[in-house]
């Protein structure tokens, strides 16, 4: 790289003057003090300071990739977080995709690789990833390789180094990687004409997704930092917030010392560790060793997550516990979910669902969703008079509700509430008139619903 010739400098100066005369170019940032150092000297200084931070040059393709290798013992962190050990590949798959059933691969933990990028900017194809960390679990340790862009011109070499480290690992672990790290990396691979098949070939476990599903009620914004603090009990030291990273890298690029960048490197390293520990803790959480203290929403969210990912074992148990906990609004959510599960099973279980739904409706008559499920179940159980009583009571309620309240009632059927209830009432009356109801006597779950208290009020 040659220093700009005098001619070049003069052209730039002239251009600057013209831009200034025109009142400043659109989109340009305010002129900032420019270090007038020789670019070659700055590059040499950067290389030296990278070495001081533990980065070593490795030839890669036509260029050089600067890699820092550290091995971190996750044991104390796992213990502190209450995780029995690092997450196995099977657990990670369970966390990301649900129950793999009998086809659980017998990969060991090192089949996973955790990835985290530090970038300049957040969107668009031109966002440069200046620091990429990859961690491979080996026993309780995490073997971390961090690739730093000491010279942005060596981006291709850095990407090759990164791809080499990800290759062969069949589970990619990230935090928010699905919408950020992986697309950003893919963009840079395309721009550098590199094959991104490695990113697509394995399974991707984005830990953000289960964190959001399980803990959004207590965390609010589910950032990694907040999840570490509230779920693992960690507080970070010696790093800088991610938002400062771009400015620090730019300063370093223009000749600032390594101390400017050090916090960013540590931040990246902690992100890798935090993600892995969090994954291990979540795996234990799914298996019933819940993160303590248990938040009232946790059992309900866990049940929903387990049901959705096809792990049915303890769903009912968690839902019942939430209902019994009597902490709104999750107890009602859980009651609805439990009733829905019981209704699906039919028979005696559906009779229990009727009891739950009747309780839900009794405690909140505006809950037409509960009323509808109740009426459907009663009709299925051939308890037509009771179902008719529900329909009549619901119609009466509809006539008393203001229009907007009715429109806002959750779970409205297509065609609207009133039409739905009227149709149901007509049908039930028909059935009763046709004598389709069973003769008075014990029917499955009979006597559970007494329409009288429903009609009172």
């Amino acid at each position, binding site marked *: 790289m040659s220093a700009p010739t005098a001619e*070049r400098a003069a052209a730039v100066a002239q251009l600057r003057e013209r831009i200034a005369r025109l009142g400043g170019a*659109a989109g340009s940032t305010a002129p900032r003090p420019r270090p007038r150092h020789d670019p070659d000297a700055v590059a040499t200084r950067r290389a030296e300071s990278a070495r001081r931070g533990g980065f070593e040059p490795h030839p890669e393709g036509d260029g050089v990739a600067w890699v820092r290798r550290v091995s971190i013992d996750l044991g104390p962190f796992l213990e502190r977080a209450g995780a029995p050990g690092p997450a196995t590949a099977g657990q990670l798959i369970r966390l990301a995709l649900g129950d793999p059933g009998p086809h659980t691969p017998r990969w060991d933990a090192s089949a996973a690789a955790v990835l985290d990028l530090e970038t*300049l900017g957040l969107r668009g194809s031109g966002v440069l990833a200046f620091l990429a960390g990859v961690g491979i679990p080996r026993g309780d340790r995490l073997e971390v390789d961090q690739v730093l862009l000491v010279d942005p011109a060596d981006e291709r070499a850095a990407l090759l180094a990164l791809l080499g480290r990800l290759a062969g690992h069949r589970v990619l672990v990230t935090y928010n990687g699905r919408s950020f790290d992986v697309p950003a990396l893919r963009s840079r691979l395309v721009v550098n004409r590199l094959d991104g098949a490695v990113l697509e070939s394995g399974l991707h476990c984005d830990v953000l997704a289960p964190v959001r599903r399980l803990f959004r009620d207590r965390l609010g914004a589910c950032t990694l930092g907040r999840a570490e603090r509230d779920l693992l009990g960690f507080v970070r030291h010696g790093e800088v917030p991610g938002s400062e990273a771009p400015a620090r890298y730019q300063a370093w690029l223009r000749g600032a010392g390594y101390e400017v960048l050090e916090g960013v490197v540590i931040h990246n390293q902690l992100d890798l560790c935090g993600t892995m520990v969090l994954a291990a803790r979540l795996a234990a959480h799914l298996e019933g060793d819940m993160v303590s203290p248990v938040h009232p929403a946790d059992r309900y969210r866990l049940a929903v997550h387990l049901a959705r990912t096809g792990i049915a074992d303890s769903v009912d148990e968690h839902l019942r516990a939430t209902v019994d906990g009597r902490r709104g609004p999750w107890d009602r959510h859980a009651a609805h979910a439990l009733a829905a599960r019981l209704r699906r099973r039919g028979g005696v279980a559906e009779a229990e669902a009727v009891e739950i739904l009747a309780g839900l409706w009794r405690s909140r008559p505006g809950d037409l969703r509960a009323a509808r499920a109740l009426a459907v179940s009663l009709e299925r159980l051939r308890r037509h008079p009771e179902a008719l009583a529900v329909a009549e009571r619901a119609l009466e309620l509809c006539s008393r509700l203001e229009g907007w309240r009715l429109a806002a009632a959750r779970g409205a059927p297509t065609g609207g509430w009133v039409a739905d209830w009227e149709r149901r009432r007509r049908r039930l009356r028909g059935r009763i008139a046709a004598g389709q109801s069973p003769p008075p006597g014990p029917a499955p779950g009979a006597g559970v619903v007494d329409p009288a208290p429903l009609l009172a009020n």
Partner: protein
Amino acid sequence: MADASTLAALSDDPVAAALDELRRHPSVAGRIVHEARLEARPARHAPWPAALHPRLVEALRARGMEHAYSHQAEAVERALAGRDVVVVTPTASGKSLCYTLPVLDAWLRDPEARALWLFPTKALAQDQLSALGEIAAHLPPGLRAATFDGDTPPGVRRAVRQAGHIVVTNQEMLHTGVLPHHTGWVRLFQQLRYVVIDELHSYRGVFGSHLANVLRRLRRLCHFYGSDPVVIACSATIANPRQLSERLLERPVDCIDESGAPRAERRLWFWNPPLVDGAMGVRRSATLEARRLTTELLRRNLQTLVFTRSRGSVEVLLTYLQRLHPPPAPGRPGPVRGYRSGYLPLERRAIEAGLRDGSVRAVVSTNALELGIDVGRLDAAVLVGYPGSVASTWQQLGRAGRRDTASLGVLIATDSPLDQFLVRHPEYLLESPPESGLIDPDNLLVLGGHVQAAAFELAFDEGERFGRADVGALLDCLAEDGLVHRSAGRYLWSADAFPAEAISLRSACAGNVVIIDTSTTPDGPGQGPHGQWAGSSGGRPGSHGRVVGEVDQFAAPVLVHDDAVYIHQGAQYHVERLDWEEKRAYVHPVTVDHHTVAETRMSIGVLEIDGGPEGAGCRRCHGEVRITRLAAIYKKVRFLTHETIGAGPIVLPEQDLHTSAAWWAFDPAALAGLDRAVVETGLLGLAAALHHAACLLCMCDPRDLGRHAELRGAALPPSAPAAPVPPLAPAAVGEPVEMVAGWRPAAERREGLAGGWPTVYLYDGVPGGVGFAEHLFGAHRDLLRAAGELVDGCGCQAGCPSCVGPPSASVDARSSTRTLIAIAARGKAVIDEGDDGLGEAPSPLGASASRA
């Protein structure tokens, strides 16, 4: 191939008969100052090109199109041969087939082929997409065409990125939504065969300069992904379609401008409302005239489209017409409807359908209906006022014109100078189009922003050109600023920013002042479903206002100073406060009987001469200038009477505009013998007349071009870039006598013409300029001729706002302007019999006078 049936139909054409009868009507006859008849023209057919996919030809035949029109066949053939094409034919001549067919051909041959269509508006994109669907219905299934714009939901966006064969979008979305995210569009870029640019003529000035750079970025990415798409552009009639498209694309372009579409007889009436005040040149309102004419047309059952120039006047005229033609029942849609932005899309679709099926008999519209939205063919188009460009005029007139019956186009002139000029000189409309679309892709401010965006998209190699522009110094500059990192012969984007977002395609500089309506009226004027909202980013706590518009930094002190009455699309707004630091003006709608005119002090310093001086007696040049302007006071001016009813101070910093200008400097020797007052009034008149004529020639809005006249202007020829402009103390302003807004400051008078030469400037309103000045310098003769005709043709006695401005107490403004035009044209004040000074080279007398 005049087919007999068409001619037979014409001979007993009911529309022609009705028009003949109307033409003789007493309330009509006296107002038509000129009638032109464009003869019927039969279709010129050609077979579908042999290279076209047979399935496609089948589909066309299934839709009843046995042959192509000649221009369609030619355009398709060239596009299929890989040539870039621009098609310049009238409205409704079947232009969209010219690009639809090559695109579908490519898809039929290779289902992976992709195309990108650019339309200037979202509504047009939707309309073209449904037209495409009609042809695609006859083709094998599987064609995926979708719009990609601000309204596209995120889920659909993903699908369009992955699998859209035809992506229909607009330049803004391409600029911020596609190009900077190109790695998400790999398939599109790899397989891109065609880029379609419709309504090419709308990309002129700054907007076109931006588009040229967006296309440079697009090409760069295509090159990276290994594609080289053919560009097919369509344009309304302008003077330089080939030049404009070659400047936009930076490649040779085939220009097809012979339409093969048939046309029945068309009549054009130039309608001048009668004078109300002869001395002041005030005429009867064009809106009232339009009401009268439209009523007569409706009485004869002629389906009519009325174009007005603002959304406000749409509603006024609509109210008048609906009173005369009420709906069948209250609340039901009547036969007369309005159409403008701000109407809901469904409402608009219903009106378009009503026009097509004939249930709607008249529509009053803004230029929203001008662009190619399909409303079928109508009997009459009435233009209330000149729409601002000849191309727009033809687009709007072209809305009328059926295949087998005659049609009518009417231009009703308002009081404005351009309107009055055009009704007196219909040849400007009827003869070869005088307007040129001008752009300057290398305007430094425009280029600078796009180079950043391009560097963000892909690293620049050292020595790489951006289109035709050499951007080495610019990249070095960005590298110094830390926006890109230069090493190993490459420039990599290394800033934490998304540069495309900082570039507004509608302006050159970033510092526009945003005008925010602070009232919360839900249906204030211009409120549209796609309106922008300033939201919580509003400068004032709790102020949630609608963004009315933007003005550039240079115009803001004049238009939106504190207490100004700002007129936007016909609606009046009172400016509560101009926050100069935040670049926001807070306004609320008002209805008052006055508007405000700011008085500014201005001086122009010539920095560099790029062309000239040429001519003798009057020397003309073009080059770079610096304009320094200070808005000092404003006047409240009552409408119609134009009397001043109040005034106030403006406290704002001085403004600098660095731009290009063309100027005419008069040698004092050539002015010898003329009274000082004559020269002064003449300069003002010349500036006004040149300005009006230049707007015609450059196809620009009068606000895009500034004018200025100085008694002590440029001392010519300056040997070096001029001395710095003196500070703006009132005494040092150099006796400016005319500002943009057409008023006269109380500048101190001096005897004699010492100092510089009396000079008239026309300058580009955009920082850096977009090429108007150079064009005007080159088109000097046409410009002076048009200005001369404007002055000669005015019906006033000694000058009026429609031509050269009002006369002063003692001087005839028209004759003094005419004198200066003569000097500018031929270097002497005396006009010989039969010689307007424009046909020949300057006479020896003029030359010697200037040497003296």
